[in-house]
């Protein structure tokens, strides 16, 4: 299998570094994962009991890590505008509540988001590459990526070709990611593995490593469009791959669980998982994101409860 040295002016995180993009390196690290033990470990971390200051700290961090998302056929400029307002000022009455990390939309909505969030620090993320199935031609994926970045996206969420992956054509998966990465230019690339379609943790680990060696800045669990989305054990397995990749290359890759994370309790469980697997360095929006749409209001409700001692009615939290 071929490998190439890329002097990566493409990777804004490590402008000076040269790293080897090699499929064989990825597959070499792709040892098996024991499902029973991995699920047990994730379940035990989910039992951590977070109270008081540690809970508030975690919830605020969770907000700052959110990719507030709308990915529907019926999305309009108005809908996206409302979402952007919420992203920039989740709780206008409380200045201590941070803005979210990014707004995540379809490519055609990118110009509207760019207008709405200008100067706020909220990033513009967009799915591309034939989202969510990825079943289109590579040159179309590459062009879609290029045009989306040109329209103003800071971050591209691409999907891998699961058909190619499941039929064993790892080379195609690898090369396509590398091409999209190149098309991203200065934009960050998040690679969606769609773990709900990969069948087992061995495959999740393998896909994670292929994505990272091919140039991903982030790896992401799901599109949110299939039956099984992010889970704690899948996230654990992906984080362990990130940890091994970091040891092998020195490169820090981000993690984004997406889909089905709707409660504060679950969000805190993800943060505990992150903290106790990766350590404090990964506790930043630069290296961890939540892909979520309904999580934000639950977190705001919990924060209000911690502040006032009582749960407030849902009517006090905006539906956007």
């Amino acid at each position, binding site marked *: 299998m071929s490998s190439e040295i890329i002097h990566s002016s493409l990777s804004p995180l490590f402008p000076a570094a040269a790293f080897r993009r090699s499929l064989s390196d990825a597959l070499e690290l792709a040892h098996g994962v024991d499902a029973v033990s991995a699920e047990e*470990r994730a379940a035990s971390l989910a039992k951590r009991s977070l*109270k008081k200051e*540690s809970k508030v700290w975690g919830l605020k961090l969770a907000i700052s890590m959110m990719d507030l998302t709308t990915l529907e056929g019926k999305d309009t400029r108005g809908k996206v505008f409302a979402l952007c307002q919420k992203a920039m000022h989740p709780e206008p009455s409380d200045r201590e509540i941070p803005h979210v990390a990014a707004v995540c939309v379809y490519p055609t909505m990118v110009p509207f988001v760019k207008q709405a969030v200008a100067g706020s620090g909220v990033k513009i993320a967009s799915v591309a590459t034939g989202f969510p199935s990825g079943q289109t031609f590579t040159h179309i994926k590459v062009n879609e990526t290029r045009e989306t970045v040109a329209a103003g996206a800071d971050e591209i969420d691409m999907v891998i070709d699961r058909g190619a992956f499941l039929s064993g054509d790892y080379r195609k998966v690898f090369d396509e990611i590398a091409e999209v990465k190149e098309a991203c230019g200065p934009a960050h690339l998040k690679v969606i593995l769609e773990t709900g379609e990969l069948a087992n943790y061995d495959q999740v680990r393998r896909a994670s490593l292929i994505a990272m060696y091919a140039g991903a800045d982030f790896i992401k669990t799901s599109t949110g469009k299939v039956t099984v989305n992010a889970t704690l054990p899948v996230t654990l397995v992906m984080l362990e791959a990130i940890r091994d990749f970091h040891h092998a290359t020195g490169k820090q890759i981000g993690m984004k669980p997406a889909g089905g994370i709707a409660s504060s309790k679950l969000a805190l469980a993800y943060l505990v998982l992150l903290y*106790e697997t990766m350590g404090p360095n990964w506790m930043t929006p630069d290296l961890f994101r939540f892909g979520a749409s309904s999580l934000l209001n639950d977190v705001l409700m919990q924060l209000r409860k911690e502040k006032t001692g009582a749960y407030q009615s849902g009517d006090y939290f905006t539906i956007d």
Partner: protein
Amino acid sequence: MSTTSIETRERLQPGPASSALLWDYSPSLESTDHFRLDARYNLFIGGKFVEPHSRRWFETINPATEETLAEIAEGDAEDVDRAVREARRAYQKVWRRMPPSERAKYIFRIARLIQEKSRALAVVETMNGGKPIKESRDVDIPLAAAHFFYYAGWADKLEYAFPNRNVAPVGVAGQIIPWNFPLLMAAWKLAPALAAGNTIVLKPAETTPLTSLLLAQIIQEAELPPGVVNIVTGAGATGAALVAHPDVDKIAFTGSTEVGKRIQRAAAGTKKKLTLELGGKAPNIVFEDAPLDQAIEGIINGIYFNQGHVCCAGSRLFVQESILEPVIRKLRERIGTLRVGNPLDKNTDVGAINSRAQLEKIQELVSSGVEEGAEIYQSSCALPTRGFWFAPTFFTGVGQSNRIAQEEIFGPVLSVLTFRTPEEALEKANNTPYGLSAGVWTEKGSRILKMAQKLRAGVVWANTYNKFDPTSPFGGYKESGYGREGGVHGLGPYVVLS
């Protein structure tokens, strides 16, 4: 009762690189106001709590704070004799004659009452023994109830456990249990004995008698006929009196190999049936094709679970040399994330050492490891100032001949050794007087089967460690003892077949 006061500083240094940012988990203490301990506990004999003949009581403490929890009666030979006579009477007049389905009802009732009172039992287990609340809550107490449930089911089905045989109880059983899993070990011993129709005199460990005495209260509440279960607390002399009593038909002991040998000598030449579950120095063998991150969890769970106070702890880690570097690196990272401190904190992973004596034994053996030239690595966690504590520790560069590779440390201390081939792993793993348990980590199924066949150990775990279930027999080879507890095998020591 006073609440425990432990100075714990939450800290973590996990991950590939640590920085100044620490996420302090605020204390999350299990409450202790939902039950009340008595100031003094007497002996449980003939269905009643009675003062000891010696009129002496000793203090039992919380090893995490060194605070006194209660006074416990010191039973002597007179008390043991009284308990054995009550047990004999209950055996002949009541328990042996009772229809087995009726016996089962009592055992079920005990199981349900343990579940009902599980919260208090978990807290007391943690306060008296030092183990983290998450372990007593999620492992010890539920498993104890599960053992009673499981053996209750056998009580009226003994003829199916031993087909084509006549099954009779043995008689009066003397049972001596250790301090590492106090209530669970009581359940392991009592449940099968009761199901098979025996009556019992139980001697809890000196340092951890409290949950056994709460169990005595449960037994009263379940209205088990008086004398069927008697509990005599005390130290070594009390246990020795029980072993020496001429009217005891069976002795079951769990504890150190040293004491086990003494009991074996004492029982020699008598009619007494004997089962022993003793020490261990279990090999945990990691092959180069193992699922590495899960193997690390298994290693951690294998040695630091219950502060390493586990007879089947995976205390000798055998790593295939080709993966030694990543295993040691990951182990160092993972050990740094273990939260050591107040056992009542729901986020604590490693609690207090059970007693000062045990702490001194661990310290002595660890010093010997350093003196013999092994390289020590300890978690840098802050330890509370009061109570008995030992930081999670492992040694690399350990040879088979080092004391830390041969002797049971019974603490949170792991010895790492290496091997080159499966044959070498087997040879070294079996090269010990013990043989209680073993672990094998590999993705290759055929290798698991081959290793399991050739490892001289009562339990072999594959790609997991420290898993227990009432349906599964547990027991040792060689100096780890004989007889099995758990499963249908666990009934064997408590029946006479004809």
